[in-house]
């Protein structure tokens, strides 16, 4: 589903974010990317979403090479990805419901169908009772869940989450992980970046460990869940 082959990413100014990174993620797999902050986790996710492009090597997502992808085809690739951003990127000029509905409007879904799907997505992250609220009124954990609802409302086959448990306390973090795992169970491919190694260990899934842009170890989990 996602495959990196000798990927290098250097930012203008010479900073090397990723060095010779190779890995494969199969369909329906749940994989964590760990490492200290600055290790290149976010860059790796941005390469998958074609927000950044590799300087060398190939990134193949859903059978499409990101480097050779035409800009015209890019939106359609992204519609197949669910993105949970580190900084949430919630729009504060509209309600929770409208935030979640945005991807459906972009894809051109029928209005009635959109409403149904939006409700379903909000229900999955336990935010249905807050649908009319303004995002400002949400707690950090709720904002994170809103971001997840928006990422999955379109039923993508791949979900990318950058530090989904970032600033949350343990209870909230477990909530989020449980939600993410429920998507894993219905066959969504998950790639989750996290600086906290205790979470992936807890679930025993595969871990890609980055250190200063280089892939350090690729360890298999104790057992698939």
């Amino acid at each position, binding site marked *: 589903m996602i495959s990196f082959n000798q990927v290098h990413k250097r930012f203008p100014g010479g900073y090397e974010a990723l060095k010779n990174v190779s890995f494969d993620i199969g369909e329906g797999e749940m994989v964590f990317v760990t490492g200290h902050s600055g290790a290149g986790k976010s860059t790796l996710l941005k390469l998958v*979403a074609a*927000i950044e492009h590799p300087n060398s090597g190939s990134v193949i997502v859903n059978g499409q090479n990101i480097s050779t992808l035409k800009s*015209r085809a890019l*939106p*359609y*690739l*992204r*519609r*197949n*990805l669910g*993105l949970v*951003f580190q900084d949430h*990127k919630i*729009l*504060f*000029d509209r309600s929770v419901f409208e935030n979640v509905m*945005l*991807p459906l*409007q*972009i*894809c*051109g*879904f*029928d*209005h009635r169908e959109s409403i149904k799907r939006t409700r379903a997505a909000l229900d999955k992250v336990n935010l249905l009772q807050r649908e009319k609220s303004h995002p400002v009124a949400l707690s950090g954990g709720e904002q994170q869940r809103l971001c997840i609802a*928006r990422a999955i409302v*379109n039923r993508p086959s791949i979900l990318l989450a950058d530090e989904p448990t970032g600033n949350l306390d343990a209870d909230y973090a477990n909530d989020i992980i449980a939600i993410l795992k429920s998507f894993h169970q219905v066959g969504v491919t998950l790639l989750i970046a996290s600086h906290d190694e205790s979470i992936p260990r807890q679930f025993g899934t595969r871990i890609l460990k980055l250190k200063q842009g280089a892939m350090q170890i690729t360890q298999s989990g104790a057992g698939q869940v």
Partner: protein
Amino acid sequence: MKIWLAQHIRVFRSTLYRLFSTPLATFLNVMVIGIALGLPAGVYVLLQNVQKLVDQVTGSPQISVFINMNVSRDEVAHIGKQLQQHKSIDRIEYVSRDQALEQLKHNTGLTDVIGGLAQNPLPDAYIVYPKKFDAPSLEALRDELQKWPKLEKVQMDSAWVHKLEALLKFGRLAAIILGSLLSFALVAITFNTIRLQILTQRDEIEVSRLIGATHVFIRRPFLYLGLLQGLLGGAMAWLIIAVSVTTLNSSLAELTQLYGSNFILQLPSAMDSCTLLLFSSYLGLLGAWLSVAQHLWQIDPK
């Protein structure tokens, strides 16, 4: 197709909502566009009206034939007969020197001055109505009559009309130049409005691109905004012209009554009004398009 239509309707509605949610800013923008367009369009309407007036006046051009003062009455009658038999003259009208004096007294109110004259200074005259009204045949007739003996002067009453028409042509050209310059201003206004709107919606554009919005989808609301603003500006221009014309007409009525005319300014025709609205919409769209091409892609998601 149905989805496409639904998307357009949704964008149209949200654009309208956006325009009316900031009424003052929208009003000022529309007003500026309205004035910028109303000025050249108003001049155009005015010229159009003058043209109509000119057409009315020149509906039946005449040639005045003044006869030498020392010619006897019989000879005057003889000249009349000759004129009447001329092949390119439709009919003639005799104005005797006494009649002319009476008319002068009546029309100008100079009774005292005229009464003080020792003798009538006016000649006998024929007003000649030609068969053909186009300028070359009129001039040919005039030139021919000028060669006749015993005639003091042959005057074509439509000469001033030609001068006026040249003047109108000049005025129209000036209106076109003014219009072109102000159209450019309109594009610039829209360009900047859309630029501000793009910056305001920066977050929304960024997020939309990240979750798979196509260029067309992102561009659409801004193009609609430019189009609608242009359309409203055009409507404002029309309103400005309509109000001006109505106001002018009420004071014009007094003036024209003095001249025994019932000339009033006409509003722009339905065709011209539609052209105005279409043109302003198009300019708005053009400004939006340029702005989108320039600014939208500077917002690159990171």
